[in-house]
């Protein structure tokens, strides 16, 4: 009965007028960002992040989460109607969604992917609701050694599994940790790497880092490359949105398989919506009795992936909320929001902040229902948004980034940091270093150091502690395997060729999304 009480508590929180409004706003903005190529979810969340300072932490998280899962809904719209995925996670939806649109079945495709998205998300939310408290309960027994091992595993997995060089991923993570250490050391009050700058005592601003490395660097890469979609908004007519009985019959199992795969890959660090969607497409094609239909508008080819990526969006919250260990850069940002608001993440979160946890989960339902209702009637508006030329869009985005950075502390230092991190982000793109691990390392770095030092104090300076405690030893073992496998597969020639082909494919489908953005989507 306690469980029902919790759900009721969550519903009460989610249905306050303020939370409903911000949930709606987040879902709406997320869809918008998802539709427009060249504006990634990380850039969008970090841009809107300062707006949430003045809100309660629960409300702030509800809105930012709405942006996160909203982009996946919006991305499918652009994939189907224009063959341009708004986000990397929607890239496979183009393969069968766009042919459907060309056959005059765009309305059906949009309606059905919305249903698949809702189904996948619901599946993910149910798992999230059931498993997060259990895992958190189990994690209460974890000591510092286990936490250090878990964070190490998260960082190693997220930097080596994504496509591209494992060494560069690891280097990005390490640079992120170093940047995270700037400022006052919490245990000895020594100021590190601040070089006499008083503004850096509290450390580097998460917002400045995220907006610089993702927002500004992405704009620098996209200027003069992204063109507004050359389409006539009136040409997108939805003759029919009602699926045939055959469509419905074919959709059940792909949705179910997609949701299961998505839920699984969503929880793991390093994988995520994009990988889940790609794998789901591959599986559907393999189990199909008529694989030749794929690529020519097979409905299974959009239902599986769209269900998978939405399920993964939701289950990504499981490790973040139950352990306080985010598996992707976006989740690291969510965790950062909590920490800025003074909420300590970790297994105690559910018991100390039940309103926040249950309210957030219940808001996912609300948000997904809003998206279900929003998506179809507003398609005309989304298509029109696509025709805004980029040369008008990007100066305005930069302006919002600057105002946001300034208001997150009313100090011009934050704006200078945005410029500095923008330069760093651009340099990283030239040298082909992924940006997402940098952010993850930045958020987890100080926590990792703290747990590392604490574990070492308890073990009286014996490094073997990480391999003697059973849970920690298992996690360290997995980390070692992931590291070896990641380095081997990314340095292996065959893997490399496949990675390049994938990146090229994604690049072709998502102009304005660099290779890195594709990786980020997989996180």
């Amino acid at each position, binding site marked *: 009965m306690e469980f029902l009480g919790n759900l009721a508590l969550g519903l009460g929180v989610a249905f306050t007028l303020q939370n409903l409004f911000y949930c709606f706003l987040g879902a709406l903005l997320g869809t918008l960002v998802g539709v427009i190529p060249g504006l990634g979810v990380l850039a969008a969340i970090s841009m809107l992040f300062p707006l949430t300072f003045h809100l309660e932490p629960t409300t702030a998280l509800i809105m930012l989460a709405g942006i996160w899962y909203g982009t996946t809904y919006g991305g499918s719209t652009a994939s189907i109607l224009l063959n341009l995925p708004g986000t990397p996670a929607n890239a496979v939806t183009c393969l069968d969604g766009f042919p459907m649109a060309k056959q005059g079945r765009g309305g059906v495709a949009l309606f059905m992917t919305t249903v698949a998205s809702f189904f996948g998300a619901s599946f993910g939310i149910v798992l999230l609701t059931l498993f997060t408290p259990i895992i958190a309960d189990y994690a209460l027994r974890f000591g510092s050694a286990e936490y250090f091992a878990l964070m190490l595993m998260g960082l190693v997995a997220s930097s080596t599994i994504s496509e591209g060089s494992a060494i560069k991923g690891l280097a990005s993570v390490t640079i992120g940790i170093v940047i995270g250490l700037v400022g006052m050391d919490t245990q000895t009050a020594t100021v590190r790497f601040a070089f006499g700058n008083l503004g850096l005592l509290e450390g580097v601003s998460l917002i400045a880092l995220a907006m610089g490395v993702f927002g500004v660097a992405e704009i620098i890469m996209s*200027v003069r490359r992204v063109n507004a979609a050359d389409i006539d908004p009136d040409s997108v007519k939805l003759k029919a949105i009602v699926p045939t009985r055959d469509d419905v019959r074919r959709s059940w199992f792909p949705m179910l398989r997609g949701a299961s795969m998505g839920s699984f890959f969503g929880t793991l660090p390093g994988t995520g919506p994009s990988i889940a969607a790609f794998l789901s497409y591959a599986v559907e094609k393999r189990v199909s009795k008529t694989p030749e239909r794929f690529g020519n508008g097979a409905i299974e080819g959009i239902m599986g992936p769209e269900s998978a990526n939405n399920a993964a969006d939701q289950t990504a919250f499981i490790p973040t909320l139950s352990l306080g260990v985010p598996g992707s850069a976006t989740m690291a940002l969510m965790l950062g929001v909590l920490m800025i608001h003074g909420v300590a993440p970790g297994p105690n979160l559910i018991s100390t902040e039940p309103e926040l946890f249950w309210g957030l989960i219940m808001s996912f339902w609300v948000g997904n229902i809003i998206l279900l209702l929003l998506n179809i009637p507003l398609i005309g508006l989304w298509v029109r948004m696509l025709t805004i030329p980029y040369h008008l869009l990007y*100066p305005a985005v930069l302006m919002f980034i600057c105002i946001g950075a300034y208001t997150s502390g009313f100090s011009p230092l934050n704006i200078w940091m945005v410029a500095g991190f923008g330069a760093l982000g651009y340099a990283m793109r030239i040298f082909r270093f992924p940006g997402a691990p940098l952010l993850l390392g930045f958020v987890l770095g100080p926590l990792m150091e703290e747990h590392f030092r604490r574990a070492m104090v308890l073990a009286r300076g*014996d490094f073997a502690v990480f391999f003697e405690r059973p849970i920690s030893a298992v996690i360290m073992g997995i980390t070692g395997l992931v590291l070896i496998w990641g380095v081997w597969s990314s340095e292996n020639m065959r893997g490399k060729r496949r990675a390049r082909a994938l990146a090229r494919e994604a690049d072709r489908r998502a102009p304005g999304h660099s290779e890195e953005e594709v990786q980020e989507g997989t996180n």
Partner: protein
Amino acid sequence: MYRIDYVDIVGGALLILFGAAVTYTSVTYYPMGTPSRMGPGMFPAGLGVVLAVLGILLAAQALRRPGPRPDVRIFSPLFILGGIAAFAAIIVPFGLIPAIVAILVISSLADLKIRPVSLVISCIGLSLFAPFIFVFLLGLQIPLLRWPF
């Protein structure tokens, strides 16, 4: 294409330099402590070593394979970062609206095309829209216009 991957060689070299700087700073300026009582220098000193090792691995691999030519631009990043810097320099002494106009004008140049009409329209529109959201709706205390002299 280059005969060897110069991009990664430079990247690796930069990693080695950065790692060395991190370790040097940590060892020189922050107490190291002992493994059972670590000082603030120990963890970053270790990270610096990790970075340098990764840099060596990266550069060593790059010597053995051909690499693509990087697509480096100069003017787009310059105007965009310059616009942000102008905003940072202007917002406190002159207020929000001059800062908005500065960033819009300077960053628009990154497109390497000047569109005076749409630029004027977006300057006027956003100078009204941004204060409406941030100052009026969110109630933030940002002066709109200032004259410091």
